[in-house]
């Protein structure tokens, strides 16, 4: 086993872990929203994002 690979592997795991958290908590969706509409982060942009996102989100079932 090549020990020099361990930190890179851990880094990669950490990155995927935080990416998963950003996706679960809709931060990635907000970033994509900003990119799609070419907006800078702001209160107004976030309010618009919530309006768009929540309409879709409220139709998603939550599992038992």
């Amino acid at each position, binding site marked *: 086993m090549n020990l020099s690979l361990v930190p890179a592997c851990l880094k990669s795991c950490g990155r995927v872990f935080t990416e998963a958290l950003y996706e679960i908590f809709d931060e990635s969706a907000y970033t994509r929203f900003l990119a799609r509409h070419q907006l800078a982060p*702001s209160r107004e942009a976030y309010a618009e994002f919530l309006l768009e996102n929540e309409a879709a989100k409220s139709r998603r079932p939550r599992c038992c």
Partner: protein
Amino acid sequence: MRKLVRVLIWLLIATAGALALATIALHRGEEINAMWMVVAAICTYALGYRFYSKFIAAKVLALDAQRATPAERLENGRDFVTTNRWVVFGHHFAAIAGPGPLVGPVLAAQFGYLPGTLWILTGAVFGGCVQDFVILLFSIRRDGKSLTEMARSEVGKIGGLVAYAAIIGIIVILLGVCALVVVNALKASPWGTFTIAMTIPIALLMGVYLRRLRPGKVLETSILGFALVLLAIWGGQWVSQTADLANWFTLSASALAILIIVYGFAASALPVWLLLAPRDYLSTFVKLGTIAMLALGIIGLRPTLHMPALTRFIDGSGPVFAGKVFPFAFITIACGAISGFHALISSGTTPKLIRRETEARMVGYGAMMAESMVAIMAMIAACVLQPGTYFAINSPAGIVGQAPEAAAGTISNWGFPVTASEMHSLAQAVGEQTLYNRTGGAPAFAVGMAHIFSHSLGGHALMAIWYHFAIMFEALFILTVLDAGTRVGRFMIQDALGHVWKPLGRTSWYPSILATSAMIVLGWGYFLWQGVKDPLGGINSLWPLFGIANQLLATVALCVATTIVIKMGKARYAWVTLAPLVWLVAVTFTGSWQKIFDANPRIGFLAHARQLAGGPATAMTGRLIFNDRMDAVVTGILISMVAVILIESAILWTRVLSGSREALVKETPFVSTRFAAEEQV
């Protein structure tokens, strides 16, 4: 040489799994360590994933790495987004993990740890994981279509209608039962009620922080909210010890039920996003963190299971719920083994995020394995309790008696010694006035979890904090399911009514919003109220009803899956979905028949109604008889729907196999993925 090493490793895993399973299955009369259960589960999942899911992926579904997914073809940065497979895995797991896998195993522990554990493992590997995996893949191949749409297009119009009705039915029953679990956990508990009440201002504060101070920083806001919730738990202890404040937060089951019904209606009908969205994030954060902490706690403590492998209650005389181990263990544990509700998630957001078709195996099959592991942890949390304690918490007063001494005496006579003073000490240790008659599974799970956490971190002094942390976690979790479920149900009814009269389908038209919200809330509110007023605690009649409804939805999903497999020309492999389907049909039909017609009044709704009618008339008698008859009718409707979709599917299978009908699958045409080319470069 490498191949030989691999073979040896898998032989080792198989041997370890077999040894662990033999230990948990064959040990009688002595306590075993929970790690045997953990090892058995991990090895079973590893073998199931490596061999069975690979077989399904290769032979049955023929996953195609060259085929573009809807996330790639229809990418719009909003609904369809190509996403890293581990990220989709986490997203999917967070969506399917609900209170079900925590509560079901705790209730089924009345049979002993063995029946529930074996069902969780086999049910997941051969049923639940398969269902989630195949439905996910079939949805991917149909541009992310929902289960209802697939049922309509692949099975027939009746199939689509049954799927729709089943989803509405399960939502109503699920929400009623979930609300009952919360009520039973919070009644006469000022500490728990205060903590949950505080999540409302905390969520509002989070909402303001998220919108005004740090727009979009959800994770940061959730961490802040979590810290405030911990503060609320700590404050709850002070509230419970301050007489005036404690009185404010000491609520009866009826009062809590009314509050929850009002909350559900408000959450659906009023624009309260400032409250709901942050609560949703907070709930997810606490859920994922607690599950991880519980896993670490079990591994760190390696607790001993005090519950025997089998109890005398496999004969159907159980106090938690009545009914023999077959079929009731298999209905009680749904989400940890197989849950129809997962098919909605697998045909919802997840298929629109998958980057490569081959990743459906890891996400669909793999995430359900993780969910099943949560159920195993819940089983461990219940079984680390002394059986006497477990039964004292979970048995309704109608079975064991109201007075502590009488309850302790009855339970001790069953062969599970417990004393009133032991229960009093335990109640004091967790900061409650009493732990008797707390049916519903949540308090027993919370005591087990507090036991594991306090022995791993903080010692006995923190037992009360951990207990209320667990109660807060479950209640927060369930209330999120409640408000989200009410809204989803409202939208579904609006969609349907929109076909009758267009304005009713407009989701922004207030009369329609109020009317459809009221319909859903009255539906689950009825079941909640029925449970609260039931002298047997409500769980005895309602949890099996919920289990039947959930397994019915799984039956619909497996009918759709089997139909598609046969139409794909893979009839020789149809047993992969047909076997769990046959098992579920056996379970739901037997369970429903017994719940309606069994002569034992504790099992059969109609027998119970007859018993009440023949007994002394009280103010409650008429309503209880009506409730029993209503439950019998609901169960009958559910099972009739299973019969309808089964018959429609079976006719279709016969026609396709005999060649009298063309096997036409409604897949999206093949488009080559760009990712394959990118990989080669």
